C-alpha cells in the first residue's frame, strides 16, 4: 500500500472519535470502516485505529490466465454518467477505472485516487491523485483528468445525468454546471473540492457505477467504440442482448498490478440469458456458464443443490412499495399510514424474499449504514389500519398495486396486497411485463421500486425523498424533511448525526411515504473453479480480483 499516513498523526479528528465510539461499542466495525474511510482514512489505517490488522484476503495463490463465462444481461452501453443499470457499468469497468471503490467490508478504498481528506465540517475535500497511472493510449493520468470528470458529472443540463444529483453541492443552480471554482486543481496530483454545503457523502458518491473515469478524447455515446481508459481489459465483442467480451489488454501496464495485484483472467465473457432465472439454471446445468450475476428467490437453494458455491452479502439493497403522493387517495398521510399499518414487514420478508434478509422499518435507513438510528420497528396493526382508513373515508376504495413481472418483486407485492386484504381493504394486483412496466413506472400511483444500496444512509434519502429530486417517484415533498436531511448531511460527528437521523427517519415514517419491508441479502453462485468472486453489495464486478483454477 502507498498509504503514508499513520494512525493518530494526520488522521481526520472525526475518525479518531469514531474509533473511540467503536471501542465503547456504539459503532459496529462495518459502520466504523465506512465512516472513517469516507473521510479519507485508508482502510489499513482504519483497521489500525481500532487495533486490528486488515484481514488478508486470498488464502490460495491466484493462477494467471483462463476464461470466465458469466451470466449477465448485456445492455447497450451509454455515456457512463447516464448509465442506469449496474450491468452497463460492469462491462465498461473492464477498461474504465473509478476514483474510489466500495469494499465488501463497508470501507472505501482509493483506486485512481491515492487518498483524500475532508476538513472539519466536510465542506472541503482534498483529493490526492495516484501517481504512475497511464491511459491505455499512453497519456499520463493527472489531476486535470480528475477535475474534468468531476466537472462532467456536474453538468445537470444533460438528460438523464444522475451524477449531477450526487455532486449537488458542487453544481451552480443557475447554470446547471459546476460552480466556478468548485473543482480546483492545485497541483499535478491534487484536486480540491469546495462544497457549497457540507456533504459527508461526496467521496462515497464517487463509488457509484456511473462515476467511471473517461479520457479527454471521449465526448459522449458508446464508450466501447474508442475504448481509451486506464483499466486492464479491452472490449473484444459487444453484441447487445447476446454477448459482451472483455480481453486482457496485453499492450498496457495496469497501475493496479503493483498496488492491489491482478488481473488474472485473460478473458471474461458475459452471456445474456434474459431475465428468467430458469434459463440461467439451464445454462448452468449445461456447463455454459461459470457464474451467475445474481441468484434470487428459490433459485438460491436450487443452485446450492447442484453443487455450485454460494456467495452471500448482507446489504442495504431493498424494495420500496411506494405510494405516489401526487395521486388521490395517496395524497393523504392517513391513507398512506393505514397502508403501512396493515402490513407486517416480517411476513413480507418471509413470503416475498424467502426470509433471506433483515426486516426493515419503513424509513429506508439500514442498520449497516453509519448514521443509522434505531427508532423501533414499524407499527403493525391491521385493525387500526382499517379504522384509520375508514376515518379517511377510503375504506371502500379499491387499491391497485402494480408490480414488475419479476419473481421476488411480484411476490413481495403479493404479500403486501394479501395483508392489506386481510386488514379488510380492497386490493387489486397488476403484474406487468418489463416492456410495459418501465414505460409508466414513475407515474403508477401504487407500485414498487427496487433500490440498490449506497454506502451512506443519507445518500439514498437525498436521491429518493428530497423534494423535486429526479429519482423521487413518491413525489414526497416535505420542507421539514429536507431541512433535517440537510442538517444531517453537514454533521461529521457520529452521535450528533445519528440524533438528527432519528428525526429524519421519524418524519419519513410518520408521513407514510413507503412500505419498505426488508433489506435484501444478495447471492451469487459460481463453480468450484472460480475464486475471489464474492457477490458485491452494489453488484460491482472487480474483475482484477477474479481468477480460475
Amino acid at each position, binding site marked *: 500500500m502507498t498509504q503514508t499516513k499513520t494512525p493518530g498523526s494526520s488522521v481526520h479528528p472525526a475518525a479518531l472519535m469514531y474509533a473511540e465510539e467503536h471501542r465503547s461499542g456504539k459503532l459496529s466495525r462495518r459502520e466504523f470502516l465506512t465512516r472513517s474511510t469516507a473521510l479519507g482514512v485508508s482502510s489499513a489505517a482504519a483497521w489500525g485505529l481500532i487495533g486490528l490488522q486488515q484481514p488478508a484476503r486470498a488464502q490460495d495463490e491466484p493462477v494467471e490466465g483462463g476464461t470466465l463465462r458469466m451470466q449477465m444481461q448485456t445492455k*447497450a*452501453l*451509454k455515456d457512463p454518467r*447516464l448509465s*442506469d443499470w449496474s450491468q452497463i457499468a460492469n462491462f465498461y469497468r473492464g477498461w474504465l477505472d473509478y476514483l474510489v471503490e466500495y469494499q465488501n467490508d463497508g470501507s472505501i478504498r482509493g483506486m485512481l485516487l491515492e487518498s483524500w481528506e475532508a476538513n472539519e465540517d466536510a465542506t472541503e475535500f482534498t483529493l490526492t491523485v495516484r501517481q504512475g497511472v497511464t491511459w491505455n493510449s499512453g497519456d499520463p493520468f493527472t489531476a486535470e483528468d480528475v477535475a474534468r470528470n468531476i466537472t462532467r458529472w456536474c453538468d445537470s443540463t444533460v*438528460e*438523464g445525468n*444522475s451524477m449531477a444529483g450526487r455532486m449537488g453541492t458542487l453544481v451552480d443552480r443557475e447554470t446547471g454546471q459546476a460552480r466556478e471554482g468548485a473543482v480546483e486543481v492545485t497541483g499535478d496530483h491534487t484536486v480540491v473540492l469546495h462544497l457549497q454545503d457540507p456533504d459527508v457523502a461526496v467521496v462515497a458518491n464517487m463509488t457509484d457505477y456511473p462515476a467511471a473515469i473517461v479520457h479527454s478524447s471521449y465526448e459522449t*455515446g*458508446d464508450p466501447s467504440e474508442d475504448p481509451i481508459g486506464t483499466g486492464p481489459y479491452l472490449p473484444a465483442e459487444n*453484441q*447487445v*442482448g*447476446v454477448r459482451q467480451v472483455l480481453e486482457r489488454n496485453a499492450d498496457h501496464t495496469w497501475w493496479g498490478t503493483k498496488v492491489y495485484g491482478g488481473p488474472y483472467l485473460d478473458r471474461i465473457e458475459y*452471456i445474456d*440469458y*434474459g431475465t428468467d432465472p430458469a*434459463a440461467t*439454471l*439451464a*445454462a448452468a*446445468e*449445461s*456447463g*455454459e456458464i461459470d457464474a451467475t450475476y445474481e441468484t434470487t428467490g428459490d433459485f438460491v437453494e436450487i443452485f446450492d*443443490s*447442484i453443487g455450485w458455491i454460494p456467495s452471500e452479502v448482507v446489504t442495504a439493497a431493498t424494495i420500496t412499495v411506494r405510494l405516489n403522493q401526487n395521486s388521490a387517495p395517496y395524497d393523504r398521510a392517513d391513507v398512506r399510514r393505514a397502508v403501512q399499518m396493515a402490513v407486517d414487514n416480517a411476513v413480507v420478508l418471509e413470503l416475498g424474499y424467502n426470509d433471506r434478509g433483515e426486516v426493515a422499518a419503513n424509513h429506508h435507513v439500514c442498520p449497516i449504514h453509519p448514521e443509522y438510528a434505531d427508532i423501533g420497528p414499524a407499527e403493525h396493526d391491521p385493525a387500526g389500519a382499517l379504522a384509520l382508513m375508514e376515518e379517511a373515508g377510503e375504506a371502500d376504495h379499491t387499491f391497485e398495486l402494480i408490480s414488475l413481472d419479476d419473481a421476488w418483486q411480484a411476490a413481495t407485492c403479493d404479500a403486501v396486497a394479501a395483508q392489506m386484504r386481510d386488514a379488510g381493504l380492497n386490493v387489486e394486483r397488476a403484474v406487468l*411485463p*418489463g*416492456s410495459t412496466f*418501465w*414505460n409508466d*413506472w*414513475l407515474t403508477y400511483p401504487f407500485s414498487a421500486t427496487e433500490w440498490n444500496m449506497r454506502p451512506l444512509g443519507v445518500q439514498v434519502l437525498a436521491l429518493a425523498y428530497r423534494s423535486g429530486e*429526479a*429519482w423521487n*417517484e413518491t413525489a414526497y415533498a416535505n420542507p421539514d424533511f429536507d431541512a433535517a436531511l440537510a442538517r444531517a448531511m453537514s454533521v461529521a460527528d457520529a452521535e450528533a448525526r445519528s440524533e438528527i437521523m432519528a428525526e429524519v427517519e421519524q418524519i419519513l415514517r410518520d408521513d407514510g411515504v413507503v412500505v419498505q419491508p426488508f433489506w435484501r441479502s444478495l447471492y451469487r453462485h459460481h463453480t468450484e473453479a472460480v475464486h475471489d468472486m464474492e457477490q458485491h453489495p452494489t453488484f460491482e464486478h472487480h474483475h482484477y480480483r477474479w481468477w480460475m483454477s
Partner: protein
Amino acid sequence: MLRFIAGRLATMLLTALCLTLVVFFLTNLAPSLERVAKTQIGARVSDAEVESWLNRNGYGGPMLARYGEWLGVMPGWTSAAEDGGLAAGRCLGDTAAEAGAPRYCGVLQGDWGTSTVFRDEVATIIARSLALTGKLMLWVLVVMVPGALVIGVLSGMREGSRTDRGLSTLSILSTATPEYVSGVVFIAVFASSAVGLRWFNGSATSAMEQATFTNFTLPVMTIALYGMGYIARMTRASMAEVMTSQYIRTARLKGVSFRALVLRHALRNALIAPFTVIMLQIPWILNGVVIVETLFNYKGFGWTLVQAASNNDIELLLGVSVVSVIVVLLTQLISDLGYVYLNPRIRIS
C-alpha cells in the same frame, strides 16, 4: 407461368407494404415512442426530456412522412446543432455532419436503418439471426420431413392395422402438444437435475457457435415433433386414399408385390398432398421458432422478433416483418410451383 410468378411477387410487395405500414403505425403511437426514448436515455427521465429527445432524433415529424423516410421516398430527417450546423440526421451516421451525405436513405436505397436496442445495422442483425435460424430450420427439416413421411406411409399403407393405430396415436399426441409445453417438459426430463437424466443441454446458447448433439437436440426435437405429427397425419390420409384407388387394385391384381406397389405406384401420388403441407409448414416452423428460440435462449430470428417487439425497436421490427412476409409468400409460391410439377393435371396459366 411467368405472369403467375410476377403476380405473386407483386402480391408480396403489396403485402409487405401494407404490413410495414401497420407495424409502423403501431410502433409509432405516442406511448411506444415514449418507451423508445426511455430505453435510450434512462428510465427516470421527465416528460419534457422525452419530448426534446424525440424531436432531436427524428421522431418529431408526421408519421406518414417518417414512413416515407424509412421507405426512402422522403429525404431523411436532420436536426440542427446549437451553432447552426447539422447535429444529427437519419443519413448522417453517428458522428457530426459529413459532407456529401445522401438526402435519401431508406429501404429503396438499401438502408434498413439502425436498431435502437442492439445499436447495430438492422441488415446486419437480420442477416446474423437468419443464419442462426436457418441452421435450426435445416436440422428441423432434416429430422421432421423423413420422419413424418415414414410414419405417414407406414400407417397409411395398411389402414386400420395395429401399426396404423399406434403411429396415429403418437402423431396426434405430438401435434396436439404445443412447443411451449413440449419444450418445458423436455428440459425438465432430459436436461435438469430434477429428473436426473441430463442427457442434453437445456440451453442452446452454445449451439450458436458450435452446434453439437448435446446442445441442439432439444430445440430441434421440440419444433420437429410438433410439425411431424401433422405432416404424418396428412401423409397417412393421402396414402390411405391412394391405396384404395382403382389403379392400385389393378396393379395388385396384376401380381405386383406389396413392397413394389407402395414404393413404385402409390408413393408418388401420395406425396402430392404432404408436399404442399410441408411447404405451408415452414411459416409455422417460423412461428414455433419464436417460442423455442426464446425458451432455449438461441438468438436467431424468432428471438430477435421478440426482442424487437418487446423493446419497440421500430426499424428492426419493420425489417423483421418484411423478411417474414417474404418467407411466407415465397414458400407458398414454391409450394404452388411444386404442386404443378408433381401433379400434371394442374396447370398454371
